[in-house]
């Protein structure tokens, strides 16, 4: 069992990180807004964590204090949130593909900036970021509760006024506006919440990865997070979490399949070296055959309906 945790500790932490990044993209998607900006905020949070821990807090001997990591996550989240409000208010007037394109531009501009500024270490980036834990798996002490909290938060959000307003905007923005919902307010709110989460994960991830550079916030990452949400399912917060965990584990699964001796050499070779080809194919097939994603509310809706119908009838 210890072996298992040593081998897959990294993977498990990544799965939890990615689940939160999937949620960060899912938040604006709740309001029907396709924003691909999450990697930008993730990169920003990471740079804040990296700069603070290597330049501001000169760490003494031993492990880096966990309280500082939490502080960095707080700062990373806040900075991302502020940037999200500044960018979001003008950008969220755009819809559909236009918003997606504007957020792609936002991520690219941040990437070019981080490649050229001195504080971000230019093309080399920042390395030697101190470790608060002696084993990768221990990052779950921070990441695990954060994911659980985010999921609880999402669970509540989907059931209160703000969450229902987001759903209303997704279904029909004009009608939602006519009902007295301020679409811009709620869209910026969802966008900002997603940015805060991405920024916090970024700050933690900088420690986990030990180095941070401009490759952390790229268009590729935007695609990956979007895939988490759409393959997992974009109608409930469970979707992006499950999607992120499955898709993050998939390359490892393929590596495992590639190690089975009974398979023909060419197939094993494809599993080992062509993992991303299979990943891409699954994205295409997933959109065609699971347009709603793997996890849909329908999975548990029937059970709830039988419970909910009776009180509704008694009101009539």
């Amino acid at each position, binding site marked *: 069992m210890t072996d298992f945790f040593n081998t897959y500790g990294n993977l498990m932490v990544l799965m939890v990180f990615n689940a939160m990044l999937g949620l960060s993209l899912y938040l604006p998607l709740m309001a029907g807004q*396709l924003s691909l900006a999450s990697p930008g905020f993730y990169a920003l949070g990471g740079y804040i964590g990296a700069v603070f821990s290597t330049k501001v807090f000169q760490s003494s001997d031993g492990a880096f204090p966990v309280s500082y990591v939490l502080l960095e996550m707080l700062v990373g989240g806040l900075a991302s949130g502020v940037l999200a409000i500044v960018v979001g208010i*003008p*950008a969220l*007037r*755009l819809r*559909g*593909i*236009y918003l*997606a*394109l*504007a957020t*792609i*531009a*936002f991520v*690219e*501009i941040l990437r*070019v*900036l981080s*490649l*050229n500024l001195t504080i971000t270490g230019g093309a080399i980036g920042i390395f030697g970021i101190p470790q608060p834990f002696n084993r990768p798996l221990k990052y779950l002490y921070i990441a695990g509760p954060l994911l659980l909290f985010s999921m609880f938060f999402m669970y509540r959000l989907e059931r209160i006024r703000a969450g229902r307003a987001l759903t209303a905007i997704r279904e029909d923005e*004009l009608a939602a506006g006519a009902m007295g919902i301020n679409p811009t307010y709620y869209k910026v709110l969802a966008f900002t919440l997603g940015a805060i989460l991405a920024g916090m994960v970024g700050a933690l991830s900088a420690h986990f990865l030990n180095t941070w550079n401009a490759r952390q916030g790229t*268009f*590729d990452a935007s*695609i990956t997070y*979007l*895939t988490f949400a*759409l393959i997992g399912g974009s109608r409930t917060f469970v979707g992006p979490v499950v999607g992120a965990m499955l898709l993050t584990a998939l390359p490892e699964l393929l590596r495992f399949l590639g190690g089975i001796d009974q398979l023909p050499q060419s197939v094993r*070779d*494809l599993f080992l*070296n*062509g993992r*991303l*080809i299979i*990943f*891409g*194919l*699954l*994205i*295409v097939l*997933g*959109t*065609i055959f699971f*347009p709603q994603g793997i996890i849909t509310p329908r999975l548990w809706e029937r059970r709830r309906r039988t419970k909910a119908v009776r009180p509704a009838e008694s009101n009539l």
Partner: protein
Amino acid sequence: MTLTQFFQNVLNGLSIGSVYAIFALGYTLVFSILGIINFAHGSVFTLGAYFTYMLTGLAVGFNGILATTRLPFALPFILALLVGSGLAGLVGVLIERLAFRPLRKRGSDRLLSLVSSLGVAVVIVNLIQYLVGAEAYSYRSDPFGLGQPTVNFGTPERPIPVRSVQLVIFAVSVVILIVLTLIINRTRLGKALQAVAEDTVTARLLGINTDRLILFTFFVSGFLGGMAGTLVATSQSITGPYFGIAFGLKGLAVIVLGGLGNIPGAVVGGFVIGLAEAFVPSQYVAYKEAVAFALLFIILLIRPQGLLGRVQVQKV
């Protein structure tokens, strides 16, 4: 800035701008008909460059499963350029059949076709890496057989040297632009294309075979993408399977600048961005990559319909 530099910048800007234009036309043709962005276009650009490389009879490198193979024949460069672009066009057709048509027939959300085209891009990029490895490839030196590396536009005393390959790129792109304009405006096929772009359902009622026309559009789009890829590769080299990603993103800036789905707009946008990049002062050259995205972001905020676009009336 001296007058010499000014002329050099203009000519270089026109040259790269013309490639942006033909590449972006590939995006915009598909968008004008289907209202979706084909995110696999950048990877078709890459494929086109590789196809031309193979067709000129050069051998594959040592990595990848096709290591050191070469075609049994070698085409002259111009012919290889045309055939390679044609093959890229066929890949475009394949993408339409496998990734777009199944979703269209199911009446899926347009965002899903965006995701499936991203999936195709992931497949193509990694397939290239799997087959021919990730190293850079260069064409034979002086592929067009020009003899001299630069052409002097000034007097012998005050030379204004411009790389001759840039001039050929400009010439080829302009020829392609003229041919395409003639096809769209003067032929029955082009008229049908415009009709479908205006209103798919009505065009079908009037007896236009829309499915065949969509296939044709994807062929032309792939052809233009592959051609642009080869042209860019002649002035630098094929930098690896990710060759087309940056160009693909920049193409998005071009089409938004000109107006999504607007064919003259894509040409104008291409030249505007090409010239804007050429005039970035040399001390800020590291920020050149951000110019297109900054323009994209600004234009989306102040004039989302693009420079030449029409304002779309919002329907309830």
